[in-house]
């Protein structure tokens, strides 16, 4: 009976049972009839018929066992036999199990990341209907959504079920304990209803509380509640000071709540209490982020066109000044999910592909080893098939054996995946959304089971195909040493070439990332990031501290810091490099044709003290630096960077030129004179080109949100301690945040690229090692098979050197062919990673040449041991073995 019909029989058990039961009943009836004919009473006859039968259920049971037990027994028998065969060749088994464990472990770990970052739906109800709505201003080439836009979307759009807005706002939290500077947001009451957020304790705020002038309330995060209130369940109704203003805590969010913008992670959510603004550009507005929930069945395209209509009608209805301000603006709509995972999708998919390639190499490797074993075992197989084992039976034996092998390996892989997942969690990669939720769950377990099965079948197939082509008589006659048929050798060579080709693709990918990264590191950031300590102090808008006292406070801290022996200079800025710009201004150059109204270019503005350039070691190219005579009462001055000079004064000197900052109303502002030109700083990160920037003296401006210290010092630790001490002494309620070194900031800004490079590099290295093992295996085997031939050659006068060359030539041939095929593959695939590369072509010839050379060198090196072994062949022994 075939395997198929036996399996089918187990599934069709019920029908068989019915059949059997009917058969037994007909038997019983015939017996009873004969009994009656023999003179029994009908009752007696039935009883006797039944009694003779005994337990009919047990008959059914033992009849059925003919189907299932037999099948299960053979499977178990195959598995036992497989284990026995594997334990007989421990070397092979260890290599194979390790390969499976490493490759499946790595694949599962990457899948665990993808599963929680890309595949898991957002933790909100019906996340597919959540969209981000923004208004794009071509003049600033960025998205600037103002609170009146949000109101227009929410009230006039017909496709929105609900919409909410929020805006980041940091708070100085004081009162009990050390003052803290915490991330928070102001949000509309509808923010909670749009996302369907339910708090763990208390409630979220109502529409009435989200009005100007309402009582101040706050909803706090789960972690803030644990940290600040020791998880006190009676927290609702208590009061905390935010920027010195008392707020009543009305609710605590659940620990499972995730803020839709993973960069923000606010601890405090405060009602936005948006001012009602009828489109007056002079009235206060709020720059907001808007999240909408589309009505059921609305497509993204439909939403986009509806919101665009709403927005244009709204702009047309506004007065001309407001309309001019947002001239040319349009609506950008995208799914919240796209917004969240967009930037990490490509790198993750590339890494998943890479790890898939490593898995493929591992499987090819084991298939190749199994093939060699299948040849060695051809005698065993021949004997077994001569003894009556069917082809299918032998095939099943082999596949079971391979499944046992991949099963053992995948246990190790599971351990590796669990460890790797916890490492990724611990690394807290800020670039990955939901990083804290990465774990090996049932999906990952299922995935492991699936690839274990697939891998086992995959590397079981090659030897199985071989077995099918074995003639038992030939196999037994020739014994173990035989049948290095060219067909079989060609198959193994193909497997190894495929391995090498795939390894080269990975090496090329990793090589491109390394090259791109080294180019990035070679970029001069425009400032010296060594030995610079940074710290931010923030002044809340509502703080009682007036401008004069803010300046006095800054001066005091600066002077006391400067007095420290290890401190070289103390600079301050409103906007630290490697972070987004804090402020910008629009400039109108004197003597140049004025751009149309409202279209004057926006330029980032950095407000600094005179020592800033010295502390950061930013080069002065022309003119002077700021000094203490640039004050509120002196003529307004500015320093620009070279990018500014290039853009606004191409071909002429910027020094001494003047510009105006247009104001929406009032008298025309005074002209600002450019007194210096400084070198470009890559403010938005090394990979971003420097944009035109204006520096102005802080003394001629106001201190807004806060100030960041940049302190050049030889003693990081002691200086940061001294800074905290000085500030605490001057004002115990003034928090300090973001105390770190410029070096750390730089390395954090590169961390996403570093992670990509390191993970792809690790996988490429693993691939290289695996394919070296592959080429080693193939050549060792081929040397063992050809020892007779080699013996003959040596007996005929060939020297050892020539034998070594013979084997190395084969290694070189395999590696070069693999490298060539791999280069073709790499040229086809690397262009998908262009977006990850900095100033590096996806076809970078130097990288391709280097990785090919590396692969060929490693391939030849892997052939060295078998070549050496071949040269040790004793011609006498080899020939006598005949």
């Amino acid at each position, binding site marked *: *009976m075939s395997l198929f019909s036996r399996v089918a029989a187990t599934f069709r058990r019920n029908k068989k049972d019915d*059949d*059997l039961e*009917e*058969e*037994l009943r*007909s*038997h019983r*009836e*015939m*017996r009873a*009839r004969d009994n009656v004919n023999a003179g029994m009473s009908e009752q007696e006859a039935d009883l006797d018929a039944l009694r*003779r*039968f*005994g*337990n009919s259920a*047990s*008959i059914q049971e*033992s*009849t059925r066992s*003919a*189907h299932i037990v037999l099948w299960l027994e053979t499977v178990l028998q195959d598995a036992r036999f497989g284990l026995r065969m594997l334990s007989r060749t421990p070397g092979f088994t260890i290599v194979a199990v390790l390969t499976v464990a490493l490759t499946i472990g790595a694949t599962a770990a990457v899948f665990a990341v993808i599963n929680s970052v890309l595949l898991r739906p957002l933790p909100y109800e019906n996340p597919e209907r959540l969209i981000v709505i923004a208004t794009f201003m071509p003049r600033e080439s960025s998205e600037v959504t103002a609170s009146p836009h949000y109101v227009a979307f929410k009230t006039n759009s017909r496709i929105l079920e609900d919409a909410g807005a929020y805006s980041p706002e940091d708070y100085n939290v004081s009162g009990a304990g050390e003052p803290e500077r915490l991330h928070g947001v102001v949000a509309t009451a509808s923010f909670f209803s749009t996302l369907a957020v339910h708090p763990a304790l208390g409630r979220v705020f109502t529409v009435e509380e989200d009005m100007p002038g309402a009582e101040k309330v706050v909803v706090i995060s789960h972690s803030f509640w644990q940290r600040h209130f020791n998880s006190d369940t009676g927290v609702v109704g208590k009061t905390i000071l935010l920027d010195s203003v008392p707020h009543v805590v009305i609710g605590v969010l659940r620990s499972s709540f995730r803020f839709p913008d993973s960069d923000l992670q606010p601890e405090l959510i405060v009602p936005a209490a948006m001012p009602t603004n009828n489109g007056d550009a002079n009235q206060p507005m709020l720059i907001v982020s808007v999240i909408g929930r589309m009505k059921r069945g609305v497509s993204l395209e439909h939403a986009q066109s509806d919101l665009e209509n709403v927005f244009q009608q709204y702009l047309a209805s506004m007065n001309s000044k407001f309309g001019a301000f947002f001239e040319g603006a349009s609506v950008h709509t995208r799914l919240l999910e796209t917004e969240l995972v967009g930037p990490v999708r490509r790198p993750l998919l590339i890494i998943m592909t890479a790890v898939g390639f490593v898995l493929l190499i591992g499987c090819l490797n084991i298939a190749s080893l199994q093939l060699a074993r299948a040849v060695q075992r051809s005698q065993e197989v021949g004997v077994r098939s001569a003894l009556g084992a069917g082809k299918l039976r032998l095939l099943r034996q082999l596949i079971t054996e391979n499944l046992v092998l991949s099963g053992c390996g995948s246990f190790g892989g599971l351990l590796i995946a669990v460890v790797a997942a916890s490492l990724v969690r611990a690394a807290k990669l800020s670039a990955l959304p939901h990083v804290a939720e990465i774990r090996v769950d049932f999906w990952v377990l299922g995935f492991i089971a699936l690839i274990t099965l697939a891998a086992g079948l995959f590397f079981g197939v090659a030897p199985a195909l071989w077995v099918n082509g074995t003639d038992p008589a030939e196999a037994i006659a020739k014994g173990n040493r035989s049948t290095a048929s060219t067909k079989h050798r060609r198959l193994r060579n193909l497997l190894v070439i495929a391995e090498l080709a795939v390894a080269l693709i990975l090496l090329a990918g990793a090589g491109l990332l390394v090259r791109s990264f080294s180019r990035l590191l070679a970029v001069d950031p425009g400032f010296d990031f060594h030995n610079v300590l940074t710290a931010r102090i923030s002044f809340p808008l509502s703080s009682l501290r007036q401008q004069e006292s803010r300046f006095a406070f800054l001066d005091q801290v600066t002077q006391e810091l400067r007095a420290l022996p290890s401190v070289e200079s103390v600079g301050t800025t409103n906007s630290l490099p490697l972070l987004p710009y804090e402020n910008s201004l629009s400039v109108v150059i004197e003597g140049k044709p004025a751009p149309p109204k409202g279209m004057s270019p926006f330029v980032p503005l950095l407000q600094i003290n005179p020592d800033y350039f010295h502390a950061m070691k930013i080069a002065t190219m022309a003119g002077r630096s700021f000094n203490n005579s640039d004050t509120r009462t002196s003529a307004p001055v500015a320093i620009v960077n070279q990018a500014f000079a290039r853009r606004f004064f191409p071909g002429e000197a910027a020094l001494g030129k003047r510009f105006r900052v247009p104001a929406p109303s009032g008298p025309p502002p005074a002209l600002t004179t450019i007194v210096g030109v400084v070198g470009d700083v890559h403010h938005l990160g090394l990979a971003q080109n420097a944009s035109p920037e204006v520096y102005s003296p802080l003394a001629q401006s106001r201190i807004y949100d806060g100030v960041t210290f940049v302190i050049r010092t030889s003693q990081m630790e002691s200086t940061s301690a001294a800074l905290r001490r000085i500030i605490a002494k001057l004002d115990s309620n003034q928090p300090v945040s973001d105390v770190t070194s410029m070096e750390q900031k730089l390395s954090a800004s590169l961390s996403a690229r570093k992670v990509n490079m390191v993970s792809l590099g690790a996988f490429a290295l693993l691939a290289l090692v695996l394919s070296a093992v592959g080429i080693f295996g193939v050549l060792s085997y081929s040397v063992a098979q050809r020892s007779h031939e080699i013996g003959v050659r040596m007996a005929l006068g060939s020297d050892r050197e020539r034998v070594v060359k013979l084997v190395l030539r084969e290694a070189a041939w395999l590696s070069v062919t693999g490298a060539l095929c791999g280069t073709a593959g790499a040229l086809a695939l690397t262009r998908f990673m262009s977006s990850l590369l900095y100033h590096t072509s996806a076809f970078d010839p130097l990288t391709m040449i280097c990785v090919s050379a590396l692969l060929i060198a490693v391939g030849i090196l892997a052939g060295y041991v078998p070549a050496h072994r071949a040269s040790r062949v004793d011609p006498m022994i080899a020939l006598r073995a005949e």
Partner: protein
Amino acid sequence: MGKNDQLQGTLDLLVLKTLAQVGSMHGYGIALHIQRVSEDLLRVEEGSLYPALHRIEESGWISSEWRASENNRRAKYYQLTPQGRKQLVRQEKSWQRIVQGVGSLLKFA
């Protein structure tokens, strides 16, 4: 599988031989036939007959079909397949060897 492989083999032989003699028969008929021909020396237990029939059927030596019995009841009839015929020849030979062997052993003792 069974407690007594020898006995099982014997039952297989009896079933195959019966079907070779009567052509096509249901389980009850097979049991009766064996009992009758052996003059009540061999009694086939229903509890071992049906597992044996199914096992033999799976080996492909007999096939079955549902038909009306002599009294117009439905019953499952078994008949030999060509492989079954060959198997019967083999089993008969091996049985004869066993009888010979056991016989000579008994004689010798």
